[in-house]
């Protein structure tokens, strides 16, 4: 049976060192570059007509734009729109890499914990920087919910602090685990087909069953690929909203 973990191996394509840091160009880096080119290229190609009445491709580009813009406006209000380029970048980056990973044989960058952790930490740092820059020490009101009786306030604040600092963990693990689990499941079920066929006889007759399962899971994984990009972006919006309005 083929190794279901093999697909997550980072292969070193050509060695590189920048300021003493290991910057080897890996297959992961290759697909990051592919993702950037694809997401930017498709957006540019789709909007090349700049027509007042959009064609199908332009509608998709505009829908993505409006989708993220709607998310930003709904969670942060109009003043959150200055974060729109950042949020849109998060969404397009993760969505494209998730979708690219669905192509058989392609590397799924978002199934690497270092990548999702770095993205989640970036959000975490931005929230803290923006929070203090906007509200000064008032940002700490985030940990002191209003209307809580004074005798349970220490406990509630403690919980708030813990939940705040566990955000990057859940934020990164959610995306990582979803992509990882989905791809492992696909590989395992695909492996079953080969095993059953290889066994011959009555077992081979059962081979279509895992094939059907793979079909279903593939459809599900496309949904998950989109959904996790959406969830990551949505959470980023909500965390940033805390930085803008810590009192709420």
């Amino acid at each position, binding site marked *: *049976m083929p*190794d*279901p*973990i*093999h697909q*997550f*191996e*980072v292969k*070193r394509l050509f060695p*590189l060192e*920048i300021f003493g*840091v*290991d*910057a*080897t*160009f*890996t297959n*992961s*880096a290759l697909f*990051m*570059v592919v*993702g*950037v080119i694809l*997401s*930017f290229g498709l*957006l*540019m190609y789709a*909007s090349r007509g*700049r*027509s*007042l009445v*959009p064609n199908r491709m*332009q509608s998709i*580009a*505009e829908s993505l*734009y*409006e989708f993220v813009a709607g998310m930003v406006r709904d969670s942060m209000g109009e003043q959150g729109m200055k974060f*729109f*380029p*950042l949020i*849109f*970048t998060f969404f*397009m*980056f993760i969505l494209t890499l998730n979708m690219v990973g669905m192509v058989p044989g392609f590397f799924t960058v978002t*199934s*690497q*914990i*270092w*990548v999702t952790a*770095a*993205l989640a930490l*970036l959000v975490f740092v931005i929230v803290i920087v923006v929070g203090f820059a906007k509200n000064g020490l008032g940002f700490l009101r985030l940990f002191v919910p209003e209307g809580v009786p004074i005798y349970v306030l220490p406990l509630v604040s403690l919980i708030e602090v813990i939940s705040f600092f566990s955000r990057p963990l859940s934020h990164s693990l959610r995306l*990582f685990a979803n992509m*990882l689990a989905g791809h492992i499941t696909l590989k*395992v079920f695909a492996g079953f087909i080969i095993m059953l066929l290889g066994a011959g006889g009555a077992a081979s007759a059962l081979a279509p069953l895992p094939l059907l399962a793979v079909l279903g899971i593939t459809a599900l994984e496309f949904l998950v690929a989109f959904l996790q990009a959406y969830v990551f972006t949505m959470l980023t919006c909500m965390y940033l909203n805390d930085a803008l309005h810590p009192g709420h």
Partner: protein
Amino acid sequence: MTEPVTTGTQVPTGTANKVFPPLDPTTLAPQLVWLTITFVALYFLLKKIAIPRIGGVIEERQNRIQRDIDAAEKLKDEVDTAMKAYEKSLADARSNATAIARTNHDKLTAETDRERAAVEAATNKKLADAEARIAETKQKALASVGEIASEIAGPVIKQLTGKDVSADEVKRALNPGAGE
């Protein structure tokens, strides 16, 4: 999650102490470097080029729609104004017509009244004259009644009593207060 977790179903590949690839710490640095490069690149590509382009198209469309709505509203206002002007001139014409009709009516009524008054005055005058004439005739007639009575009284008394009564006596008897 290291090797023991995943070895259950796989054929040993020879590198027995291999870590779980997605968590391999040796890939941290190169992946972070390239993640930084690609993410920052995508951020600036989207922020400087793609977002203004797509946002511009959307904004232009909204502006166009807004312009069309504004134009439609302006036309509607013009229609409203024209409609008001039309209604006003209609009302003016109607009130003018009413005024003209009223003055005509008033003039005709006044004329009729005058004529009727004149006719009535003339008729009244004739009536009064006739009444005066009747009264005069009646007066004369009534005055003659006394004379006739006294003229007839003498012969009637003579026939009844055989006494000859003078006209003056009869007159006095008929008109007791007249002699005094």
